[in-house]
C-alpha cells in the first residue's frame, strides 16, 4: 500500500499540533498533575506503601500512561468527527487518489503521535517534581506498552469518531466506557484489591494489560510478556475494526 497520502495527512495534523503545542500541553498536563498532587503527594501519608512502594510511585506510571492514551483517543475521535461532520475535509481527501485505508492510518498515526508527545510531557513534569528515577532499560521496555496502548486508544477513537454523529454521544462514550476501563484496570489501586473472581476477569481487559504491564516494567523492572502480547493483539484487532468500520461508514 502506498502511504504517501497517509503521511501527507499526518504531516498536516502535526503542523496543527505544532502550532498549538504550548496551549495543548498546559491543558493536558494540568489534569494528571492535579491528580498526582492530590493523591500522590496529598494522600500519600494517609495511604502508605502499596505493593512495597510509595503511593506516589505506584500511581506515577499509570498517570503518564493515562495521559498518553487519553490524548491518543481524544485526538482521533474529535479529529475524525470534526473533519467528517464539521469541516468536511474527509470528503475532500476522498476525491484525491488516496485510499480510505490511508485516511484511517493517518488518523491513527496522528492520535498515536499526540499520545506519545503528551505522555512524554507529563512524564517529564512528574520526573521533575518527584525523586523517582527509572533505569533506561525500564524506560525503553515501557515503550513496548505505551506504543501499542496509544495505538489501541487511537483506533478506539477512530471507531468512535466514525460511528458517532453527535458530539454529546462522543462525550458519553468517554464517560461510560473509556474512563471506567482506565480506572478499573488498577490505575489507583493494586489488582489484588479485587475479589479473586473479579480480578481474573479484570486481567483480561486491554487496559489492565496496559496499566499493569507499564507499572511492572517501570516500578519493578519486570517485563510481562503475556500483558505485552495481549496488548499488541488488542491493538491489531482494533486497527482491523477501525479500518472496516470507517470503510463501511463511508460506503453508506
Amino acid at each position, binding site marked *: 500500500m502506498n502511504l*504517501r*497520502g497517509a503521511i*501527507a*495527512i499526518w*504531516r*498536516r495534523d502535526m*503542523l*496543527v499540533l505544532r*502550532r498549538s503545542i504550548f496551549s495543548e500541553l498546559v491543558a493536558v498536563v494540568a489534569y494528571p498533575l492535579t491528580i498526582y498532587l492530590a493523591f500522590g503527594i496529598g494522600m500519600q501519608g494517609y495511604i502508605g506503601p502499596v505493593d512495597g512502594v510509595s503511593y506516589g510511585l505506584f500511581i506515577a506510571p499509570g498517570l503518564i500512561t493515562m495521559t498518553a492514551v487519553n490524548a491518543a483517543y481524544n485526538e482521533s475521535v474529535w479529529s475524525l468527527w470534526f473533519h467528517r461532520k464539521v*469541516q*468536511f*475535509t474527509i*470528503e*475532500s*481527501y*476522498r*476525491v*484525491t*487518489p*488516496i*485510499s480510505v485505508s490511508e485516511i484511517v492510518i493517518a488518523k491513527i498515526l496522528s492520535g498515536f503521535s499526540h499520545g506519545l508527545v503528551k505522555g512524554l510531557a507529563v512524564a517529564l513534569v512528574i520526573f521533575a517534581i518527584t525523586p523517582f528515577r527509572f533505569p533506561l532499560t525500564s524506560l525503553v521496555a515501557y515503550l513496548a506498552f505505551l506504543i501499542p496502548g496509544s495505538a489501541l486508544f487511537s483506533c478506539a477513537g477512530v471507531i468512535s469518531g466514525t460511528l458517532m454523529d453527535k458530539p454529546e454521544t462522543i462525550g458519553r462514550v468517554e464517560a461510560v466506557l473509556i474512563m471506567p476501563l482506565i480506572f478499573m484496570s488498577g490505575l489507583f489501586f493494586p489488582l489484588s484489591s479485587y475479589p479473586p473472581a473479579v480480578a481474573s476477569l479484570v486481567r483480561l481487559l486491554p487496559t489492565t494489560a496496559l496499566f499493569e504491564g507499564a507499572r511492572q516494567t517501570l516500578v519493578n523492572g519486570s517485563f510481562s510478556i503475556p500483558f505485552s502480547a495481549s496488548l499488541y493483539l488488542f491493538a491489531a484487532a482494533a486497527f482491523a475494526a477501525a479500518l472496516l468500520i470507517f470503510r463501511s461508514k463511508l*460506503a453508506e
Partner: protein
Amino acid sequence: MHRDIFPAYHARSCHYNLLFPMKADTAIIARAVTKRYGSLTALDSFDLEVERGTIFALLGPNGAGKTTLIRILTTLMRPTSGEAFVSGLNTARQGREIRRQIGVVPQENSLDRYLTARENLELHARLHTMEPKKYRRRIDELLELFGLAGRQHDFPDTFSGGMQRRLVVARALIHEPMVLFLDEPTTGLDPQSRRAVWDYIRSIAGRMTIFLTTHYLEEAEQLCERIAIMDHGRLITIGSSAELKAQLTGGATYEIEFADRAELFAEALRRMSCVGSLEIADRVVTVKLERWECLAEVVSALNGAELRRISLREKTLEEVFISLTGKGVRE
C-alpha cells in the same frame, strides 16, 4: 500533468468500450445508472453523455438526484446498478485512476480552517502525489490567477465567502485535472463574487471538461454549451439553452405599451379567443397568445390605439425549468 498519461488509461479501458461504445470526444458517460437508498430511488436508469472540453450544466430541483450523480461520477458512491465512465474509466473499478484526473468543488467549502490558504493547496498537492518543486510553482500560479496571492498565509476563516469559494476552485485545479466537477459553485455568493467565479470558469473552459450543477438558471445559460434538466432521478431533457427554450410549447408572449387608454384595449384583447392570459401593469399589457399566428388579430384589435411599443418577450430558461419540473416547492 495528466494529459500525457491519459492515453494509457484510455487504452486500458478499451474492453469497456466494446460493451459501451464511447466516442473519443466523450468525457463522461452514465448508462442506466440507478441509485436506491432503501425504498427511495435517487437515480432511476439515468443516461448521460458529456462531450470532452465542454461546459455542461445539470439542473434540477432539490432532491432531483444531481448530487447523487456527482458522487457516483467522482467515485464517492457506487451505483445500485448501471455503469458510469469518466475519461473512459469505470467509476466502480478504476476509482483511483479517475480521482487522479478529476477536480471536485463540493457544495460545502470543505477548507481546512487550521491551515493557511497556501497550506490547504500544498496538502492537496501532496495528496495528488505532486513533487514539491512542481506544486510550489503551480500554487504560485493559482494564487495569482484567483487573486489570493496577497492572502496566501492567512487562514480561510478570515476570508469572505467569495474568496473561500475561489480557494476551493483553486484547490480542485491544483493537479490540472481533465474533468472538473462543480457542485453548486456559486450558491450563497453575492452577485459580484458569483460573476468573478464565472469569469474564472470561462477562463479555464476548453482546457478541461466542466460538469456543473446549479440552481441559478442564469448561470447555466451564461456558462454552459449544453444543459440537462433532471427530476425524480431521471433525465428530462438535454440540449443547448436555445434548444431547450424551443421545446417550450405554446404560443408567444408579447408586451404592448400604450400611450394611454391601456385598460380599454386590454379589455378588448381579453375577449379574444386566442389570448391565453393577460396582465396589465400601468400602461403595459402583457398578453400570452395561444398561437403566434394570432398576432395579426391582436394588431387588428389595436386599431386606433396610440402604441409606444410591441415586443416579443423571450422565453427564459426558468420557464422551461418550471414547465418541466413543476411549481411545487421541494423539501
